[in-house]
């Protein structure tokens, strides 16, 4: 039992690590189709990663060790997050290591390192990007926590695995609070992953960029790790969203017979989510930076409403 649970954890971790660039590629491909372009194909992120891993690293003269350590920290944090989120199976051995609040902490740790590294070299773009990232994320974080609090008070536990188990085993039940926090979570997802209403993931040189401005100084394998971590982050967020709001089709750890079904369900959900994300990004326009606090304020509002409604209506 123990060994099979470990094997499950291993399968899911490997799957997530390898699938992350593919998901990124799928979102980009869908977006290309929606914009009447041919697109570079779903394998493009892998090609980019391989190319970047072969390139040499160019460091600025003033780069401190922090600058060099950050890609590894970032990748570690994101890989950990993506591993801990129950995507295919619940009740994995590592799931007890971290609850939802600690998960937010891990994400914050990665963010702090990235922002510090962006300011480290001292270019104008880096510190501009870091400041903007902090502006967006300090508004996104409370909203994310509120979403987690709603889910936690619905299932009386802050452990992700337990939350998912409780939500899977309920019958059909309308939760207005979950619907609200779902929308809030989607807004946080868009903001935290630098997707379109908040930031444009496609530009590399534009005055409004946030995430790309922070990583302008990175090259070679450092950049590859950061890009990979970005893919992992997106997958982790999407996985979190699926686990909290559409947990159907998930299996429990150790049940090998249910694994193919759960995998299939997971892949299908990812395909739909990726296409939906691309559609959402195509339909909406990028907001002015100073409108972003309003956007995040809306997310926070929805999340707070969700928890209030949960307490009032008990649903």
């Amino acid at each position, binding site marked *: 039992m123990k060994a099979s649970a470990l094997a499950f954890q291993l399968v899911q971790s490997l799957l997530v690590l390898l699938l992350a660039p593919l998901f990124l590629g799928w979102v980009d491909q869908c977006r290309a189709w929606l914009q009447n372009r041919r697109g570079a194909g779903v394998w493009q992120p892998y090609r980019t990663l391989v190319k970047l891993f072969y390139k040499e690293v160019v460091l600025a003269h003033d780069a401190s060790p922090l600058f060099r350590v950050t890609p590894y920290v970032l990748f570690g944090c994101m890989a950990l997050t993506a591993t801990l989120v129950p995507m295919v199976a619940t009740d994995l051995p590592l799931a007890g290591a971290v609850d939802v609040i600690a998960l937010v902490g891990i994400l914050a740790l990665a963010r702090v390192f990235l922002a510090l590294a962006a300011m480290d070299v001292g270019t104008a773009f880096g510190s501009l990007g870091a400041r903007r990232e902090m502006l967006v994320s300090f508004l996104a974080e409370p909203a994310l926590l509120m979403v987690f609090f709603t889910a936690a008070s619905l299932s009386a536990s802050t452990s992700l695995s337990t939350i998912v188990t409780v939500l899977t085993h*309920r*019958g059909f*039940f*309308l939760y*207005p*609070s979950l*619907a*609200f926090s779902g929308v809030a979570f989607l807004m946080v997802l868009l903001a935290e992953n630098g997707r379109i209403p908040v930031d444009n993931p496609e530009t590399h040189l534009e005055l409004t960029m946030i995430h790309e401005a922070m990583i302008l100084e990175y090259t070679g394998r450092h950049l590859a790790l950061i890009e990979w971590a970005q893919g992992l982050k997106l997958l982790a967020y999407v996985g979190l969203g699926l686990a909290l709001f559409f947990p159907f089709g998930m299996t429990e750890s150790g049940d090998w017979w249910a694994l193919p079904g759960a995998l299939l369900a997971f892949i299908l959900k990812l395909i739909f989510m990726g296409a939906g994300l691309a559609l959402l990004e195509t339909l909406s326009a990028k907001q002015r930076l100073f409108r972003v*606090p*309003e956007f995040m*304020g*809306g997310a*926070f*509002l*929805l999340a*707070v*409403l969700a928890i*209030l*409604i949960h*307490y*009032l*209506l*008990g*649903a």
Partner: protein
Amino acid sequence: MTAIPLAQQFLNLFAALLLLIAFAMLSQRRVLSLIRLFAWQGAILTLSIADSAWLTHQPHLYYSAVLTFVIKVLILPWLLHRLIRRLNVVWDVETLLNIPTTMLVGIVLVVFAFNLALPIAQLSNTILRNTLGIALASVLLSFMMMITRRKAVPQVIGFLALENGLFLAATSTTYGMPMVVELGVALDVLVGFFIFGIFFFQIRETFDSLDIRHMEKLKED
């Protein structure tokens, strides 16, 4: 938890949506979108009333659902559309107070309303009593919308939204008012709306604007 019937789950959902729309109205800058939101609020109120009629087997609630639909989804939005076109304020964009601050104050109002409604709801023994807090919250939010707006048309929409909240409160605590009262209220709203419309034209003729601030000039002499 699953013992709650499906109709009541839907009722809770509708109530939550009404609260959401109240917030959306609070943060909306454009008059046109405000009217559309108001129509949506009316539609959801209709569904909610029809649902509670079905749930509690009170046939007269169906009449009030129909009444709500006709007045608040069809007639009033249409009148509002006509009004803003004749007043030429279709594309009016209002600079509000800082929207996130307004939202935060709104959240405080909701908490206040929920706490206020809790002891009252315990006195009532209807199965719809949970929505009383939400109804109270949407009334307060509409109040706040009327207070924070400077232009006249959004203030009137706030007034009409307030009436929607009151209606929800009435159906949730008492299974609806007597038919006479409901008809009276509906007519009052219509008549009030006409009076407001006449006022608008008067205000615009006197001040060349629908901005309420200009009325402060009246105090000086």
